[in-house]
């Protein structure tokens, strides 16, 4: 078959049933992405004879004589297409995995089409941005700027990889050619709870092209957790690479390694397995009750499961004061139960790992991860390898949101590579993402609260139950975090918390943006809104009376708790409340729809979050001066749309008096930096960024010192000694003499290191308000206005920060109104494709007005605080409160879908 790609003829064999997407990628057109492989996301968009199509559902046998254009054919970094330039200028991407498809699609638009973007872009999903910046890019709005020398921070500097992303040149996890690559496919459990009695792999092994079949008999015996943290003891050891006991549908039964994905997948069907079915439990209430089937009763103390005999991975019960007594005498009280659903991260790039042995026989894993170092350490633990014998790195990662703080593909690839000594790849499908990748924890949260006649909280009690699924990855941390900043942001003399994290035979839950806080904040902020109403107070005023203020202890249930969490002298909650309330008082937003069915309402909610995860978060970084005056930095943080890389470049450029384009960033590779806990808990800027600042200052001092020595040696004039020396672009200026970088490094390398240990920590705040219209007859919610104020300390890159807040808001609107992973009650996921799961589209997300508090954090780098998880948290309750205001009835279950709201209204 002959056809053209980007003007170059291609002569290829096409497999029967093959699609254009895989054909293009086989021919190294890695600019064509896979977000779903099912036609739903648009990441694979290309032009065929000028018509935009989704290449993943375009039959390849029709290509004869046709001409295909990909994003790389539209332009190159040297000669970009105007839209490619526009996406860079507008900062129209975060992880950038959707960008190729967006640009190809938009390249067909006329000027008039710009008014019709919601409809025209309904086939292109972006999980990161919230679409406003994509709108700007297509409409030619510039949101970025070139920073003056030495003043990069505080400016909306462009992402260093921007033009490569926009032209399809930036490599993501699998965008790379490895010769002799083998592919791994997994046979998943058809049962929610079963034991493998026997397994016969001979027919699979006999298939031509099959190199290896792995079963539980091949598995290392070391238990681990897919959830990764700085301390491996934070998660229970309850997982094996391949386990003879299957605890959820889809869990690995066996893996086949073959010369193609097709052969590997077909071979899995030839594996004959005899199962002994075990009783299963799917509801956490039932799972913790007496007599429920037990999932991990075989595990001992060393697995760190709180109570395997009650399916309880973790629990917490504590009280300060006397909640019952306080409630009994309170002027006003509320009590209610709130439920949140299971949510998929829906990062556009699925999980994937490619592994091989390097020339020295070292295991190398190229993976889609937020935590390459933690992956390395756990792989070493499970496979008894020395860290020197394992290298883990990431290319650019196509989205994370917590979903890649897990070890989901690396372990089985390691096993296969170690067995075969050959390169092996394992790539999740989108269906895998929905059915076996961990999700947000569904929670049931009961809140009771009381206030006195002045509207001051007397008591706050939270009873939380969460479904951690079949494995306890993040099941402990999420539970503790969920009731921490959510409860401690309110001052109440009497508090009680009961929380339980419970195993079920559903797919595992895991880390998700907000790490449990969002679910409990939904409940508490709804309860506070109700309590404010009962006290006859405006919701802003009620919160002002009850939130903690600087100097006050942050109490969950132990007023004497010793903690490294403080205010960093940067409390901005008061400002956030004022900013949002003032904004609501100024005109703005969409005109409400007319007609008697529409009811209008306004709602607000707040959220507090620690700027870093607890118990240590470490980053070791280096900054080196190169002979040409550029700086090379080594830092462990992965880039997955968090924008950290941009900020790291800005911080170093500012500290060294240069511009970000002179900073070369080597990152997220266990070979380039000694250590980095990873990019979670929004730590990229506040931990690694601070370490880089320290390294930069150290390097600057070393450069000045060496420059002075050189100058002193030249001039024998004593009086000129100790002249002021300053780091400038290209070297160090001493008086009127520029000592060039080349001269400086001629005397030996100039490299400095900087580290940070992630303590002490401070807190950041977000306040969100919505104005909505609700159609009483259909349950439709229209967001008329969306406003978020964020207390992020010093704003290092305004456009990127705005992007994080918009993206978090968009993801949270998805959670609040649309998204829902539905299970059938027997552990089967019904919504296993994007078409059945309402990831927000361009049409679904309103413009959010983003406001910044003016604070300076004494702990963060140059006064900055972290801000990537936080913006998600206040959104769902703010929307719920607005809907309550509109309808007079309070929605208590997410998502507040049209059918649910309609039913609630119909029931009165």
């Amino acid at each position, binding site marked *: 078959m002959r056809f053209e790609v980007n003007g170059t003829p291609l002569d290829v064999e096409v*497999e*029967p*049933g*093959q*699609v254009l997407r*895989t054909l293009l990628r086989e021919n190294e057109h890695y600019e064509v992405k896979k977000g779903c*492989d*099912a*036609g*739903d996301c*648009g990441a694979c*968009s290309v032009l065929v004879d000028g*018509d*935009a*199509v*989704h290449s*993943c*559902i*375009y*039959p390849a*046998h*029709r290509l004869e004589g046709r001409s295909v254009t990909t994003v790389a054919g539209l332009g190159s970094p040297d000669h970009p297409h105007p839209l490619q330039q526009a996406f860079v200028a507008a900062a129209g991407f975060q992880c950038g995995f959707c960008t190729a498809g967006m640009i190809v*699609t938009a390249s067909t638009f006329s000027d008039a089409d710009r008014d019709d973007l*919601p*409809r*025209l*872009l*309904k*086939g*292109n999903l972006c999980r990161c941005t919230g679409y406003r910046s994509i709108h700007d890019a297509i409409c030619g709005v510039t949101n970025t700027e070139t920073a003056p020398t030495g003043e990069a921070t505080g400016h909306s500097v462009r992402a260093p990889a921007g033009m490569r992303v926009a032209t399809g040149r930036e490599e993501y996890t699998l965008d790379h050619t490895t010769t002799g690559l083998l592919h791994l496919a997994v046979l998943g459990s058809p049962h929610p709870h079963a034991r493998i009695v026997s397994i016969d792999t001979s027919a699979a092994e006999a298939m031509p092209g099959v190199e290896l079949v792995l079963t539980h008999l091949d598995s290392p015996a070391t238990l681990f957790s897919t959830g990764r943290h700085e301390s491996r003891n934070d998660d229970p050891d309850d997982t094996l690479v391949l386990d003879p006991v299957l605890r959820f549908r889809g869990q690995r039964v066996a893996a086949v390694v073959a010369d193609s*994905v*097709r052969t590997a*997948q*077909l071979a899995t069907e030839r594996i004959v397995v005899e199962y002994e079915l075990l009783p299963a439990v799917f509801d956490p209430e039932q799972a913790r009750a007496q007599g429920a089937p037990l999932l991990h009763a075989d595990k001992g103390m060393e697995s760190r499961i709180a109570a395997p005999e009650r399916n309880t991975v973790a629990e917490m019960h504590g009280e300060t004061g006397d909640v019952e007594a306080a409630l009994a005498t309170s002027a006003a009280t509320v009590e209610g139960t709130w439920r949140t659903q299971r949510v998929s991260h829906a990062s556009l790039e699925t999980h994937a790992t490619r592994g091989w042995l390097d020339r020295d026989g070292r295991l190398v894993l190229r993976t889609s991860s937020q935590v390459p170092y933690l992956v390395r350490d756990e792989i070493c633990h499970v496979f008894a390898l020395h860290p020197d014998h394992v290298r883990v790195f990431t290319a650019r990662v196509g989205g994370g949101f917590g979903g890649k703080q897990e070890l989901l593909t690396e372990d089985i690839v390691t096993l296969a590579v170690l067995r075969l000594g050959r390169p092996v790849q394992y790539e999740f*499908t989108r269906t895998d993402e929905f059915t076996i990748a961990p999700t947000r924890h569904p929670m049931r949260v009961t809140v009771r609260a009381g206030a006195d006649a002045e509207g001051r909280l007397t008591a706050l009690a939270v009873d939380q139950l969460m479904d951690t699924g079949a494995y306890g990855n993040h099941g402990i941390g999420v539970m503790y975090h969920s009731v921490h900043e959510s409860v401690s942001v309110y001052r109440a003399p009497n508090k009680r918390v009961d929380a339980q994290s419970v195993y079920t035979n559903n797919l595992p839950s895991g880390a998700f943006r907000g790490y449990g806080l969002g679910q409990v904040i939904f409940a508490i902020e709804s309860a506070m809104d109700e309590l404010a109403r009962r006290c006859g107070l405006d919701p802003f005023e009620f919160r002002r009376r009850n939130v903690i203020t600087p100097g006050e202890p942050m109490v969950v249930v132990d007023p004497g708790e010793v903690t490294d969490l403080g205010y960093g002298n940067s409390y901005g909650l008061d400002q956030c409340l004022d900013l949002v309330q003032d904004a609501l008082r100024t005109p703005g937003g969409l005109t409400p729809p007319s007609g008697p069915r529409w009811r209008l309402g306004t709602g607000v909610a707040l959220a507090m979050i620690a700027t870093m995860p607890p118990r240590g978060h470490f980053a070791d970084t280096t900054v080196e001066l190169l002979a040409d005056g550029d700086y090379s930095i080594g830092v462990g943080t992965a880039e997955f749309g968090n924008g950290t890389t941009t900020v790291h470049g800005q911080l170093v450029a500012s500290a060294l008096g240069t511009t970000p384009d002179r900073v070369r960033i080597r990152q997220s590779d266990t070979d380039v930096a000694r250590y980095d806990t990873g990019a979670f808990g929004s730590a990229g800027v506040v931990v690694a960024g601070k370490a880089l600042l320290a390294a930069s200052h150290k390097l600057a001092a070393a450069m000045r010192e060496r420059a002075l020595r050189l100058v002193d040696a030249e001039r024998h004039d004593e009086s000129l000694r100790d002249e002021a020396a300053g780091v400038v672009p290209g070297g160090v200026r001493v008086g009127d003499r520029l000592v060039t970088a080349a001269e400086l490094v001629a005397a030996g390398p100039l490299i400095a290191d900087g580290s940070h240990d992630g303590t002490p920590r401070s807190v950041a705040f977000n306040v969100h308000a919505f104005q909505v219209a609700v159609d009483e*007859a*259909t*349950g*439709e919610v229209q967001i008329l206005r969306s406003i978020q104020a964020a207390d992020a300390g010093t704003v290092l890159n305004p456009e990127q920060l705005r992007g994080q807040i918009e993206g978090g808001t968009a993801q949270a609107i998805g959670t609040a*109104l*649309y998204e*829902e992973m*539905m299970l059938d009650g027997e552990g089967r996921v*019904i*919504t296993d*494709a994007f*078409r*059945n*799961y*309402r990831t*927000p*589209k361009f*049409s*679904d997300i309103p413009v959010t007005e983003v406001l910044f508090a003016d604070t300076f954090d004494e702990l963060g780098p140059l006064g900055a605080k972290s801000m990537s998880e936080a913006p998600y948290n206040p959104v769902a309750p703010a929307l719920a409160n607005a809907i309550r205001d509109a309808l007079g009835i309070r929605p208590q279950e997410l998502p507040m*879908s*049209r*059918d649910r709201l*309609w*039913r609630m209204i*119909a029931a009165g």
Partner: protein
Amino acid sequence: MDLITVQQIRVPATRDEVTFAPGERPLGGGTWLFSEPQEGLTGLVDLTALGWEPLTVTDDLLTVAATCTIAELTRLPAHDGWAAHPLIALCADSLLASWKIWNVATVGGNVALALPAGAMTSLMSTLDATAVIWTADGGERRMPVTEFVTDVRVTRLAPGEVLRALEVRTAALRSRTAFRRIALSPLGRSGTLVTGRRGADGETVITITAGTPRPVQLRFDEVPSERALADAMSRIEEWYDDPHGSPDWRRAVSTLFAEEIRQELGGAA
């Protein structure tokens, strides 16, 4: 996605070659076939090279070939008096699939797939279109589209048969129509799609798709009274249940829309 069990794709140029071995299925645009794993599928017979004229218009008939792409249909210009013409765009926009999918997806593929949210089925049902079926023995048979789709993913095609075309009387295109649709998100997969059509003779037809497992039509000699319509709606027993809406909600919004449409078509408020 690659269809890993497919061993052969045949591309017939003449009707004789349009035959199906066990495990083989017709291939239209392929936008659904390649979007999900197809268990047991061993071969595809590509209908798109048979040279079927996508759209033919005569005085009384619009013939839409099964292989006409949705994009081609949306580009069909309105002829004089085709009051129902806007319905084409409204229905196309009711698909979850965007215009990029329409470039490849066929009208026949949409109808033959028989999804409740098959908006081409909505369109063709509303217009009382006739499905033209090529039978396995080389013959042809016809039936109303409303009867062609019998359940979720079930049609009256027998093994070896293909959908050849959809015939729409231009009289139907000249009638007055009304349209309502809702999904759980603004441009999401349809939860229900309700249309109304009032012919020159006053006959009024309410068609419900997406909300019900198969197209449901309520026919009245004239615009019905509120009561008559409500009665007819309440007799619809089966409302579809899937992740795109609960049956009780689908019933309620469909009933609401049907009444709005009745008024729009001239029924007394």
